[in-house]
């Protein structure tokens, strides 16, 4: 009697150990690990500063120092205000919200490579790693938001109902970050050069995204951009710009007024782009990461 081993294994209901589970089951098992994701993120966050003497104080000190540097360079030395109202809160919101996406991308690209020992020790859906990394960044952002809101109010911004709309912006950006960090996790897992290149890409992206200047203001002034309006359209579709700008619209009343009435730019387009980017990044990123699931253990 001749039977292949594969047929013999199938007869007893054995399954390939390195096979990828069906998508539905995979999503269920990721959902079942939600406590792991949260616990892993919190543990990472706490262990981040255990070596330093001030410890957890750095969680708040880092964003404050960041803001001071930007204030020194752009507010005092270069004085790049150029008629943008509330320039310091404008700058701080930009730097923090861009940094949220930027850090999700950089640490997302290392999320698989840095945890190879865990991947090779225990069996769990790998998507939990980039998800946990995005959660780490989200927890960090929540802490820096204390600093951000402190600065916004310190510069005389009144508390308004509009500020509640910051919450959905934040959630949309989080969805985008989760998706993009899954894409980066897969790229970084199989190509180690990605993390070397990223700093340059991220810096270029920073300057293209209207973080340290107002893009609507620039579009309004620049002749080159007026003669080639398609460049402006591309710049306005840039997800980093969309989330940064949308956050500013919710938090800074004067800036919103400045953009909507003096420059006559609409917010509706920003919301449409924000929603579309979130959905595309989250679904696409998850599927992209999932389709290499069984290969992550390999070098």
């Amino acid at each position: 009697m001749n039977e292949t081993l594969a047929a013999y294994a199938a007869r007893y209901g054995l399954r390939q150990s390195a096979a990828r589970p069906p998508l539905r089951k995979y999503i269920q098992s990721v959902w079942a690990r939600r406590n792991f994701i949260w616990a892993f993120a919190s543990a990472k966050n706490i262990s981040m500063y255990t070596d330093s003497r001030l410890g957890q104080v750095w969680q708040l000190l880092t964003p404050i120092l960041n803001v001071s540097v930007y204030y020194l360079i752009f507010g005092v030395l270069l004085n790049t205000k150029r008629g943008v109202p509330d320039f310091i809160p404008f700058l701080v919101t930009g730097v923090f919200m861009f940094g949220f996406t930027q850090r999700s991308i950089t640490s997302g690209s290392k999320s698989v490579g840095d945890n190879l020992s865990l991947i090779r020790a225990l069996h769990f859906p790998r998507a939990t790693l980039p998800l946990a990394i995005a959660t780490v960044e989200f927890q960090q952002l929540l802490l820096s938001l204390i600093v951000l809101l402190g600065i916004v109010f310190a510069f005389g911004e009144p508390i308004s109902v509009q500020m509640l709309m910051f919450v959905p912006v934040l959630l949309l950006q989080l969805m985008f970050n989760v998706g993009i960090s899954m894409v980066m996790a897969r790229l970084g897992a199989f190509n180690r050069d990605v993390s070397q290149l990223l700093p340059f890409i991220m810096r270029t992206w920073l300057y293209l995204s209207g973080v340290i200047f107002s893009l609507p203001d620039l579009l309004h002034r620049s002749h080159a951009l007026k003669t080639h309006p398609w460049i402006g359209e591309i710049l306005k579709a840039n997800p980093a710009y969309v989330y940064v700008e949308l956050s500013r619209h919710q938090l800074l009343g004067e800036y919103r007024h400045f953009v909507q009435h003096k420059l006559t730019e609409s917010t509706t387009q920003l919301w449409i782009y924000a929603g579309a980017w979130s959905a595309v990044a989250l679904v696409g990123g998850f599927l992209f990461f999932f389709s290499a699931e069984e290969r992550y253990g390999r070098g």
Partner: protein
Amino acid sequence: MADTKVRGGTIIDVDPAREPIVVVDDLHIIYRVYGAGGKGNAASAFSRVLRRKNRPSMKEVHAIKGLSFVAYRGEAVGIIGTNGSGKSTLLKAIAGLLPPHSGAVYTDGQPSLLGVNAALMKDLTGERNIVLGCLAMGMTPAQTKAQYQKIVDFAGLKEGFIQYPMRTYSSGMGARLRFAIAAAKTHDVLLIDEALATGDAKFKRKSKARIEELRKEAGAVFLVAHQLDTVKEMCDRVIWIDEGRMRMDGDPEEVIAAYTEAAGK
């Protein structure tokens, strides 16, 4: 009567009376190693780019070269061989952590690997590693809480060490904690890679009893160890691997005797 299965020229005898739990079918494993050899300076890297040569620091290692065997429920299989013979690679492949280049591994349920290098998260305390390990294995927070004290007791670390980061542990302590975490759950297939080697006599006794229990819970246990007496004590079948190929498979006494003779030469 044994059935005979044919695959790629190798003939495997299968016992139809027993239920298989792991089937390894003409398995080949090739994995990549980064940072091996080659001068790492920028000039040589640049000249390689110009000459369109591949990075020499990326090497492919053919670790398992066509292995086939069947393990049954309730078996404790010892795997022996010299350093670099492919024992650990085989366990990783059974666990599904290293994808096969060709061939396949079929298992019932999800195998769990317990290795000596598998530091969980070295910057985190023992406490957090227990919680995270349990959650990653798919336990609920309530189950994790219930198991927590058992794990601490089983690992038997010195007073207070559970609150220190795992990087401060000695290799023996780390191995004990890892074993304790993995053994907290019932596994269909448990793969143990040298994880007991660094434990002391008392811990070995405890873990041996636990392995015995896990086997009775209808799974199979694979054990890689260099201490042949451990293998002889714990296993009822031994596989000897040499350079990624099967050298011998059978009764522990016989295989170990043949192995010691070959090693003595």
